């Protein structure tokens, strides 16, 4: 079947024959044709006149579900072909019927998915020997290398749909929040067509314990510290499900890369008390100035009485010097009153970040003492909390709990991946396969010779070429390269190692503007950090327009993967396309391949050059003891191998340490759940206690109240009373981002309304409304704005 799929290079699909799409993949015949769209040969869907698309939609859905059910039981190639075909037909159908489809006038549509994508989907399913089963402890791993620009996101979404139709729950993990949000957004229409869902998250968001369970862990940890008995736990802190769970990892080699394998995400519990606040105020105001003095002070004794299992002296050893540091230090803080937190400006990239260190709490007190402060001393005191470790999760624990793990990436051949994988997969070795390309009909990427430069700005001092000092600067050469590109009306994408380096270059070009004059150079665009999810639309728009004439885009290495710098500008293509400038050396060749892959997407032309700072190479040399000569591919590869070997033992130690942390955390959670082994729990909680200002996770509470006749009288009165208690507690939290929605149901359900701020709820009107709606009415007044309306 797979060879048949690959063998077909053309097809025509009409609305009338859409449902026979298995013939598209499997049988030769009169349906097939190849059409040129722009410079690319594509399979197209020809649309005949057919007005009744709703019946077609129903047929597609029915056939998909039937095929999925049959395939789950049979694992036959024919059923798989039918299922894949139907999922592709649905995609084509969605595109064909989307409002404003530019191809509508021609009655012709691109047929999705293209052959490589179909091949990748089919090959993954064919490789999966057994259906994922909840009782299986040894899941199958299947990884596919899909070239950059081939459309991995489409493959992933199709896989999600197919597994979901077979009754599995699917999570998609990605390394970047921005890419996860983009894929969730782009996949929505296709998933919704089938009425299925998938969770698109980052690796850490999928690993982390849900906030609800975090809350329980926090409360129970506080009871341990206070020496009080533990009540029964409401629910397990697990993600147990009755469905088979499938994990699809986008850019899977990142999960097994050097930076990720030793990564541990550690949540903390925060414990607040009046005694702790007062003790820390004493320390700040220097009423006590040593650890011993603080422990023996009245407030110190009060803390020990309230928290007999907290090792106060150990905690204060970090806290007392922290107060000193903030008194004398030059940290820059800002207050985020909305979320009750203190933000510290990073020395590295100037961004505001939330921290949970003792220093941050003292910074809040310092801020509060300023006459211009936006927070009061009481607010600062309210931020104090003792922080204890809660759940530690190792990055590589992500695959645990899943019954099948599939991964796709453009660069599975990475040297790091190979080395990492050999130490990580001892029982179940991932089945890997390289997918062919639908593009690359001809070699279109021009790789230009790398340039190694000296430093030319105060932040980047480095060796100059003494014979040609003026022309050997690192930033100068990057600027000159950009100028050469825009002069030819091409586009430049400059990729920096860090945000700090990017910011430094931004400052540099403000003082040394890019020439030719600005009317020929469109505004230089900067991609914000990938963590800035609130800037998603800005990032998306910047990426969309990056490959257009005379456009210059500056980005960090995080955008070197997954971002689709599509070139639709014919004139730009004729001038040579997008030119990528990589300004740092990648220790892992997969990163270099990925960055090159930002240009030449789908057979477009493009070029690539590295402009490196000599000092960076000296750093690599210091680690590897191998001279790095970027002009020679062989040298680069041997330097990479040496780099990996030099880091291998450190990485292995990191992995072992991460696994140990996770094991200790798991044991702690088990004890916390069972209420056993108190000594061990006390030891765990006191292993790394700290103090700091925490942030609130916003609550969204949906309240659905039965107002059928049987609720009449005492029942609805009690519900109203309970509701008041809940709203008061939410108001006490005073988290501006908490929201609440209240609706009623009897035999019918009132429609979900927009959520509103807790502070906006009109309690009196709400309870009166609730009582009067018993017997089948609806609540019309919840918020003050409803009264106004």
């Amino acid at each position, binding site marked *: 079947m797979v060879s048949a799929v690959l063998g077909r290079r053309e097809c025509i699909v009409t609305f009338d024959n859409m449902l026979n799409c298995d013939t598209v993949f499997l049988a030769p015949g009169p349906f097939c044709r190849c059409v040129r769209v722009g410079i690319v040969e594509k399979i197209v869907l020809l649309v005949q006149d057919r007005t009744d698309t709703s019946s077609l939609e129903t047929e597609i859905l029915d056939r998909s579900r039937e095929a999925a059910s049959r395939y789950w039981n049979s694992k036959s190639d024919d059923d798989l072909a039918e299922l894949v075909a139907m999922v592709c037909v649905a995609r084509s159908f969605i595109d064909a019927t989307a409002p404003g489809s530019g191809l509508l006038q021609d009655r012709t549509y691109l047929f999705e998915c293209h052959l490589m994508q179909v091949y990748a989907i089919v090959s993954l399913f064919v490789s999966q020997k057994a259906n994922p089963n909840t009782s299986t402890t040894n899941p199958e791993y299947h990884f596919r290398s899909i070239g950059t620009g081939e459309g991995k996101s489409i493959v992933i979404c199709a896989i999600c749909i197919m597994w979901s139709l077979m009754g599995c729950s699917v999570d998609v993990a990605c390394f970047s929040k921005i890419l996860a*949000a983009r894929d*969730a957004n782009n*996949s929505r229409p296709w*998933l919704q067509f089938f009425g299925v*869902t998938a*969770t*698109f*998250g*980052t690796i850490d968001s*999928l690993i982390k314990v*849900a*906030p*609800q369970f*975090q*809350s*329980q862990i*926090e*409360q129970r940890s506080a009871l341990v510290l206070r020496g009080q008995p533990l009540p029964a736990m409401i629910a397990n802190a697990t993600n147990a*499900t009755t469905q088979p769970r499938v994990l699809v990892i986008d850019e899977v080699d990142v999960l097994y890369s050097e930076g990720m394998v030793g990564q541990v995400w*550690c*949540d*903390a*519990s*925060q*414990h*607040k008390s009046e005694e702790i606040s007062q003790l820390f105020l004493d320390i700040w105001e220097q009423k006590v100035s040593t650890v011993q003095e603080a422990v023996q002070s009245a407030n110190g004794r009060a803390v020990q009485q309230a928290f007999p299992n907290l090792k106060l002296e150990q905690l204060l050893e970090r806290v007392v010097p922290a107060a000193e540091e903030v008194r004398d230090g030059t940290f820059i803080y800002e207050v985020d009153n909305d979320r009750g937190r203190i933000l510290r400006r990073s020395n590295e990239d100037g961004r505001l*970040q*939330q921290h949970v260190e003792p220093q941050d709490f003292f910074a809040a007190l310092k801020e509060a003492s300023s006459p211009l402060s936006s927070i009061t001393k009481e607010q600062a005191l309210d*931020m104090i909390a003792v922080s204890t470790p809660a759940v530690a999760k190792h990055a590589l624990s992500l695959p645990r709990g899943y019954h099948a793990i599939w991964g796709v990436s453009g660069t599975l051949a990475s040297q790091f991946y190979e080395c990492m994988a050999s130490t990580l997969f001892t029982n179940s070795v991932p089945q890997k396969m390289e997918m062919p390309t639908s593009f690359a009909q001809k070699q279109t990427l021009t790789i230009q010779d790398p340039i190694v430069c000296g430093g030319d700005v105060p932040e980047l001092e480095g060796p100059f070429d003494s014979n040609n000092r003026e022309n050997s600067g690192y930033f100068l050469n990057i600027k000159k390269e950009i100028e050469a590109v825009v002069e030819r009306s091409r586009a430049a994408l400059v990729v920096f190692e860090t945000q700090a380096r990017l910011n430094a270059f931004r400052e540099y070009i403000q003082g040394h503007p890019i020439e030719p004059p600005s009317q020929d150079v469109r505004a230089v665009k900067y991609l914000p950090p990938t963590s800035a999810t609130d800037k998603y639309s800005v990032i998306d728009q910047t990426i969309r327009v990056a490959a257009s004439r005379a456009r210059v885009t500056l980005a960090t290495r995080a955008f070197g993967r997954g971002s689709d710098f599509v070139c639709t500008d014919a004139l730009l293509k004729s001038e040579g396309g997008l030119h990528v400038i990589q300004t740092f050396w990648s220790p892992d060749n997969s990163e270099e391949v990925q960055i090159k892959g930002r240009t030449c997407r789908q057979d477009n032309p493009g070029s690539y050059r590295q402009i490196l700072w000599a000092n960076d190479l000296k750093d690599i040399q210091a680690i590897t003891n191998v001279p790095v000569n970027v002009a020679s591919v062989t040298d680069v590869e041997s330097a990479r191998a040496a780099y990996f070997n030099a880091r291998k033992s450190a990485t292995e130690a990191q992995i072992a340490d991460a696994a140990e942390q996770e094991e200790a955390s798991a044991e702690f959670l088990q004890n916390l759940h069972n209420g056993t082994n108190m000594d061990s729990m006390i030891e765990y909680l006191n292993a790394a206690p700290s103090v700091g*200002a*925490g*942030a609130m*996770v*916003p*609550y*969204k*509470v*949906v*309240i*659905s*109240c*039965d107002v*059928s006749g*049987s*609720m009449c009288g*005492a*029942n609805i009165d*009690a*519900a109203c*009373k*309970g509701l008041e*208690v*809940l709203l008061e*507690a939410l108001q006490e*939290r005073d988290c501006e981002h908490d929201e609440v929605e209240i609706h009623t*149901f*009897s035999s019918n*359900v009132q*429609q*979900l309304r927009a959520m509103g701020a807790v502070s906006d709820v009109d309690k009196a009107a709400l309870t009166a409304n609730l009582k009067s709606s018993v017997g089948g009415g609806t609540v019309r007044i919840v918020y003050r704005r409803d009264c106004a309306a």
Partner: protein
Amino acid sequence: MPFKDMVAKYGSSGDSLALEMLVVTDGDEGSSQTYGTKQLKTLLDCSIPNLHVTIVACGSSASGQKQLADIASVGEHIDVVTYDNAADNIAAGFAEFTKARVSNPLRARES
């Protein structure tokens, strides 16, 4: 049916928010078509991050009790809070929900 709206609003975002659903019901008659095991299972299987459902049970009819007992078995992310007497249940159920889910102190998250 609010579930579809909820999925559309909160599904697939991967956001760090705590979505709590609190249902007050006696489990009788019409409510079984709204918050029955099948519907709640569908809701929990959808990809709303961090969704947790608490059912505050009131009433003591046999069919209602059966319905709520079934609901309790749907999954880990559903709690059914129930006591002996109907009206007291509701207030106590709200109080338990509030204590366990809302009245928590500040939480630290990794920056």
